[in-house]
């Protein structure tokens, strides 16, 4: 009997106007979206290559230590899922005077939009009258008057309805997959296809959730007109309101210090530290004046041999004198040690203070983000967005992962630079650290590798679990409602 109910529900739906509209809309939007985004991906790839070439060109022409840090080669390539989902950009763009603010006014259209807006709305339209419609037409009474349990009817409606709802989605997705697989620019490996499979499964979980929401509301309503209004009310709250309000609420509940204020405090710490350093140097100089008298005056007259300041001071003359006079050499060495010790002590305090300052800001910002993320979990929309974005490397996690990869490469890069400098110094005594050209033709290139799927799963499974939980809750509620439903 279950099979018959599934078949009837399925046929009823696919012969309906909403199925035709849903099918046409899904296929057209998905194909248009994938084609445009694939072209966009191609352009972004070209832009990425251009940036990498610019950096290579720079490093082969102008690589000196003083300038290198401004051109360190860590460019992020476009995400491999870019033809489907537009990733969120890092913060580096927001500091530029010239930027493109259009996406703030109009968020871009991608696969996430198709699932979260079009498919969820379609799911509600498929199920809002699953019970009420039949009651109004009188068919529910007829069906129940036979020996069919209500559980079987509800299961049949769920399976048949979901199957008919997923046809437009799966068909559209298949066409999209075909386009991706024949496009020579898009190179997906097995892990990308596995992620795509999981993305499809997560999307189905999300779509069935809204089908069940409609079924639940229908099982608690008497008329289809009321059922659809209630469904749309819930849809608006869950999709359009809760996720958007949560970051703002969390910003009120967990305040984060101002970035500019933190920068100002950092400048204050630096100024105070410079003053401390000056005082300490002064103290060391007075001590040496008292201890060494005339010998120290000789060093003083040579601008301290550059020990106090790298640029000023006659280094060569001091070295010459030190080579001739062992007492002078011992004093210079002791003076250098004392100055270095004073500098290092102060530097340590300064570094700790600045680290604490920014650490505090980052901790508070992370707490605010965490709160917003958790608050938004009451909406299935947010949970699905987290799952889909983290799975495809287009979300917050991918930004953090990129930062980690960047930091690792940064260290590798500088180790290479230091090694090159040491070699250069050995071969060329006139080599100067900050201004001499360094041949960096063989520097370690930054190759961004997507995070492994198993690492991502740990992050996405809880959110996916919440989506499944929503499914279960809505189904149980629909079941409870239908069991008590007055079919007359």
């Amino acid at each position, binding site marked *: 009997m279950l099979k018959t109910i599934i078949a009837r529900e399925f046929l009823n739906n696919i012969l309906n106007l909403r199925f035709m509209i849903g099918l046409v809309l899904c296929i057209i939007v998905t194909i248009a979206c994938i084609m*445009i985004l694939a072209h966009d991906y191609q352009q972004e790839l070209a832009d990425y290559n251009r*940036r990498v070439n610019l950096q290579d060109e720079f490093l082969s022409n*102008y690589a000196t230590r003083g300038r290198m840090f401004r*051109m360190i080669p860590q460019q992020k390539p476009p995400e491999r899922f870019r033809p489907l989902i537009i990733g969120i950009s890092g913060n580096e763009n927001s500091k530029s*005077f*010239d*930027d493109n*603010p259009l996406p703030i006014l109009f968020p871009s259209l991608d696969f996430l939009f198709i699932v979260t807006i079009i498919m969820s709305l379609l799911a509600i339209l498929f199920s809002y009258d699953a019970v009420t419609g039949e009651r109004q037409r009188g068919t529910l009474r007829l069906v129940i008057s036979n020996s069919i349990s209500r559980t079987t009817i509800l299961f049949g409606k769920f399976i048949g309805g979901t199957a008919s709802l997923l046809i437009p989605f799966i068909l559209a997705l298949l066409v999209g997959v075909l386009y991706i697989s024949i496009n020579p620019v898009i190179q997906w490996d097995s892990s990308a296809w596995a992620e795509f499979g999981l993305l499809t499964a997560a999307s189905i979980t999300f779509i069935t959730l809204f089908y069940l929401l409609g079924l639940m509301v229908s099982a608690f309503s008497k008329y289809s007109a009321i059922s659809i209004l209630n469904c749309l009310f819930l849809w608006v709250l869950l999709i359009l309101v809760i996720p958007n309000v949560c970051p*703002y609420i969390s910003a009120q509940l967990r305040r984060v210090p101002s970035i500019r204020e933190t920068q100002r405090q950092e400048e204050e710490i630096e100024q105070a530290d410079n003053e401390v350093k000056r005082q300490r140097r002064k103290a060391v100089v007075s001590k040496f004046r008292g201890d060494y008298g005339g010998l120290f005056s000789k060093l003083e007259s040579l601008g301290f041999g550059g020990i106090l300041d790298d640029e000023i001071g006659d280094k060569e003359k001091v070295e010459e004198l030190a080579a001739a006079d062992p007492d002078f050499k011992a004093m210079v060495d002791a003076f250098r040690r004392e100055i270095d010790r004073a500098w290092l002590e102060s530097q340590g305090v300064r570094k700790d203070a600045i680290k604490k300052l920014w650490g505090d800001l980052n901790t508070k910002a992370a707490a*605010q983000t965490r709160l917003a993320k958790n608050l938004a979990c009451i909406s299935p929309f947010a949970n699905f967005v987290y799952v889909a974005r983290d799975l495809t490397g287009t979300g917050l996690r991918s930004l953090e992962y990129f930062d980690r990869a960047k930091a690792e490469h940064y260290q590798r890069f500088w180790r290479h630079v230091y090694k090159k400098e040491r070699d250069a110094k050995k071969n060329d005594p006139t080599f100067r650290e900050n201004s001499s050209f360094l041949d960096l033709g063989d520097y370690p290139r930054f190759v961004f590798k997507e995070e492994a799927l198993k690492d991502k799963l740990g992050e996405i499974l809880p959110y996916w679990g919440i989506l499944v939980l929503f499914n279960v809750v809505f189904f149980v509620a629909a079941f409870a409602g239908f069991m008590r439903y007055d079919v007359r």
Partner: protein
Amino acid sequence: MLKSIIRKEILNNLLSYKFSIIIILSTILILVSIFVMYRDYCLALENYEILRRTKSDDPVVVIPPTPLGIFAKGLDENLCRSYEGGSGGRINASSKQKSLNNLFKLFTAPDLLYIIKVILSLCATLFAFDIVCGEKEIGTLRQSLSNSLKRPILIIGEWVGGFISFILPFFIAVLLGTIFVTLSPMVDMNAQNWEKLGLFLLISVLYLAVFFSLGLLISCLTHQSSSSLVVSLFVWTILVFLIPNLGNILARQLVRIPTVQQLELKREQIQIRRELEVYERLRTRTWPERREAHKRFNLENEMLGEDYRNRFNRLVKVSQNITRISPAAAFTFQATDIMGTGMLEERRLKRAVLKYMQFAGDWDDEKGNRPAFRYQRSSFREVLGQGGLSNCLILILFNVLFLAGAYVAFLRYDVR
């Protein structure tokens, strides 16, 4: 007769479940939105005070957030960054305070503009989708027309009565929210702002009327309210989400624009070449020679920025032209321009910043202290003067089109 129909429609609506649920939803949302965005405005003001106090030898430009951002946030966060002149004519923008919480990038600001654009437009469509076909289903349409009632009177009465019952609660909710905002000591609304808010509400009514008329048109083209509902929802999805969002990425395919990262890399290269040329190669040369080199690099830098901005302006234009076929996009552009948080203001501010930075760069310190940057957001007249009402005309056109369509369809409607 028209009065009776209007009264009947208003009463019908007031007593319906649809009215209760839509009114509850829109009132709660509008009040929550205004409160949330008001708190956000207070944070933006605090941030502005901190940015304003920044002391620097380089010229710094920062403008305060507008209280109208509570209603239409638009690009206000971008506009209220501080811009600092750097070496070689470069301008650096400060980080946005919200960049600390990346979740803001995933979701949209829930301001009044968003509520009207997305949620109230849906409500307007839901209000109107069964005006004609619903009456046909319950049989009252046949009865009404069996009397000496003319069809034009009936359709006009239905539209006016339905729209009044929909729009009045919206005004009450907005009024409550506005009272809350104006009573707050943090918000200082001047006459200009009131004018702009008034115009914004007027445009909002026009926009909502478009969706109401659309619902009516679909209702006149269908014979069952369930079909009307399905068609209405899909057309709403296409107009509110699909066209504006797809049009934006489509415009990017038509106008090639480099990414900001590429632009910044090129700028960095120019700066490095400048340092090598002026501070190392020409170090021993005379000042006029070095000044010439500086000018050359400044020009190169300016040309790079100019090229980017020209392309970007073209992109905005193409994007506007494509997305204007959606009333939601026309409304967004129009509303943000009126409130001083849109593309118009962004372009105007950037032009003013560039001009000021150039002026500050040429300033002779012997003349005394450099005058501070002064900036007034576009006045009411300026907004109207710069062809700013073209989007408004598009909304009127949509209204006329949908209403005329509904009128014609209703004249040919089979009421049996």
